């Protein structure tokens, strides 16, 4: 056995190469589901408003009259150039929608994730440490229920309670219309723009708007994190090296922190990466509940409008985001865990 510690760059390279087939599989899946299976998108979107000739013209303009395979290759080529098409119903480039609304989704998910870690990691740690005590039972129940509660229902109830007991606290939207009007758009991320503009009132307003949605979505994720941290901590606490550390007289607190807890977090990183999909699902619902001007809310609008091209474009973008996140998680994992090497 030889030391192979210099292989991290190689691992990252291999992992980067893997992005291509992964991307391809996901894009093909999207294409099959949204373009081949449902039939003609133009009729679905605007069939009731236009006559047959006009529909044909629309179809030709969008290139939908060509063979499927040509459309497929073109779709792949466009996606590679980050061109996600133009919506049928309101003729907006999907990329523009993403630029305009992606920021709201980003701050929502990041905020939710912060809440989830803040709640989930300490609770999971306590539960794993005090296994089978009433405290553990209570935390586990909290985890199960917070995962079981539909995110939109939690949102609804929170809105109702806030309206009743904290009048004046914002319950929908990402900011006051005034704030949106005054903060100059630079990055597409409102919070960031406000910080760049150094506009304290706007920052406070935006943050206030973030609290409820982020907390709601974070609660859902915290259930998953509690469970993960708890199970992994129990597992590492039973590992042989933990007993060996105790036998060397390492103080118990240090054994828990340096051996059991730290090692328990490694698999958590991977699984949380996988839970990014869950975060996106939750974000769609949260945005709907809080009237959040993000991609999920927009996506549901286009679904209701039966705009296949818009749906396809947005879903393609989600797929891209998933691939990027999983790539980042794997690299992070390789950085943290010396055993990941090739």
């Amino acid at each position: 056995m030889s030391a192979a510690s210099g292989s991290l760059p190689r691992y990252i390279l291999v992992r980067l190469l893997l992005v291509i087939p992964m991307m391809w599989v996901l894009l093909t899946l999207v294409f099959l589901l949204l373009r081949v299976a449902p039939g003609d998108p133009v009729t679905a979107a605007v069939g009731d408003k236009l006559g047959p000739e006009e529909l044909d013209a629309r179809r030709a303009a969008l290139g939908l009259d060509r063979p499927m395979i040509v459309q497929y290759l073109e779709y792949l080529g466009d996606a590679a150039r980050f061109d996600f098409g133009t919506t049928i119903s309101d003729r907006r480039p999907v990329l523009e929608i993403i630029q305009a609304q992606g920021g709201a989704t980003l701050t929502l998910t990041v905020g939710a994730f912060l809440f989830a870690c803040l709640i989930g990691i300490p609770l999971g740690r306590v539960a794993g440490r005090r296994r089978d005590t009433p405290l553990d039972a209570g935390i586990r129940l909290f985890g199960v229920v917070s995962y079981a509660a539909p995110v939109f229902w939690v949102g609804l109830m929170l809105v109702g309670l806030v309206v009743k007991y904290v009048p004046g606290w914002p319950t929908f939207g990402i900011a006051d219309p005034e704030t949106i009007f005054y903060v100059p758009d630079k990055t597409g991320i409102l919070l960031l723009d406000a910080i760049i503009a150094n506009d304290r009132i706007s920052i406070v307003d935006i943050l206030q708007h973030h609290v409820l949605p982020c907390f709601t979505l974070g609660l859902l994720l915290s259930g998953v994190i509690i469970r993960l941290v708890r199970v992994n901590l129990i597992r590492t606490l039973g590992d042989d090296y933990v007993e060996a550390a105790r036998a060397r007289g390492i103080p118990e607190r240090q054994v828990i922190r340096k051996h059991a807890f730290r090692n328990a977090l490694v698999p958590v990183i991977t699984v949380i990466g996988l839970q990014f999909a869950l975060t996106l699902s939750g974000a769609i619902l949260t945005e709907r509940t809080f009237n959040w001007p993000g991609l999920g809310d927009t996506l549901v609008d286009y679904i209701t409008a039966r705009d296949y091209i818009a749906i396809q474009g947005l879903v393609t973008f989600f797929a891209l985001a998933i691939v990027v996140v999983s790539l980042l998680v794997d690299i992070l994992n390789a950085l943290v865990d010396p055993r990941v090497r090739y």
Partner: protein
Amino acid sequence: MTSLTKDQTPARPGGPVLEVRDLRVWYGTDRGPVRAVDGVTFDLRPGEILGLVGESGCGKSTLGRGLLGLLPEGAARDGELRFRGKDMLTLRRREQYRMRGSELGMIFQEPLTRLNPMMRISDHFAETLRAHERRISKADVEQRSLEALRVMGIPPTRFRAYPHEFSGGMRQRIMIALALVLRPAFVVADEPTTALDVLVEAQIIRILHNLRATYDTSMLLITHNLGIVAEACDRVAVMYAGKVVEIGPAREVFSNPQHSYTRELLRSTISLSTTGLNFIDGAPPDLTDPPSGCHFHPRCPDAMQICATTEPPVRDLPGGVRAACWAAEVAHGRTLDEDARRPLPREAISVADEA
């Protein structure tokens, strides 16, 4: 093997490192308490290696862990356990912790899983040294760790490597170095070579055997391999069903076993000089409900009536051996009455009771 067994170091001033008197370690299970260690008595002199042998499930490991206090929740110990005269059973938890690593060490069976895969070897050493010597300098940590590794034959080039970069034998060497870096006076080695190949096993036994030249360490070497005891130990204790049935100088016990169990165990071991197969019928007893009298009597080929009813006394025999066996009693001149001496009709032991 003159250097190993013959010149027994006389007890140094301060007496034995470890005094164990009538130690019991029991576990509670659904079926009732398991009497894993049930009244064990022995001493360990400084620098002495005591081998502990017996079939699996006879309480060897529990005894080893019980000596260090590394027992799972729900286990109970009592009796007397003195380390350098200090009573270990009444010590507070904190005190016990402080003694582990610095005065009491443990070497485990599976070296592959005993090192934290996320920590460098150097971190393991630094952590261990710092836990016991708060103010130790970085240079000191490195110097002392490298010295401990050197003794085990691990080159300094590998000091900052991760555990997975080492082979099984190397990891066991690292584990031994880690257990000894603070120079504890007593170490328990629980089957330290079981997972290793023959040649590596021999290397490790050699290292263990040479320890006393470098460190002043006494050791309890737990093994099921009688060969290892013969190669590495000064004295040997034979354990059966939670009790030490015979203890004495390894050479004496092996060449002239006093307890029937020791004799049968030696006979059933396949060695290079084996010319015919022998075996002990049956299996070790369930320790929640051990047999009456001598625990070995149901499997013993020369059990007498008294063996089934009365526990044999522990007797000091010539050659420094101590054994608890009625047959040995008789052989050494004790007279028992006719009834007690009558051979015990053996219940047929079928394959159904086999281990």
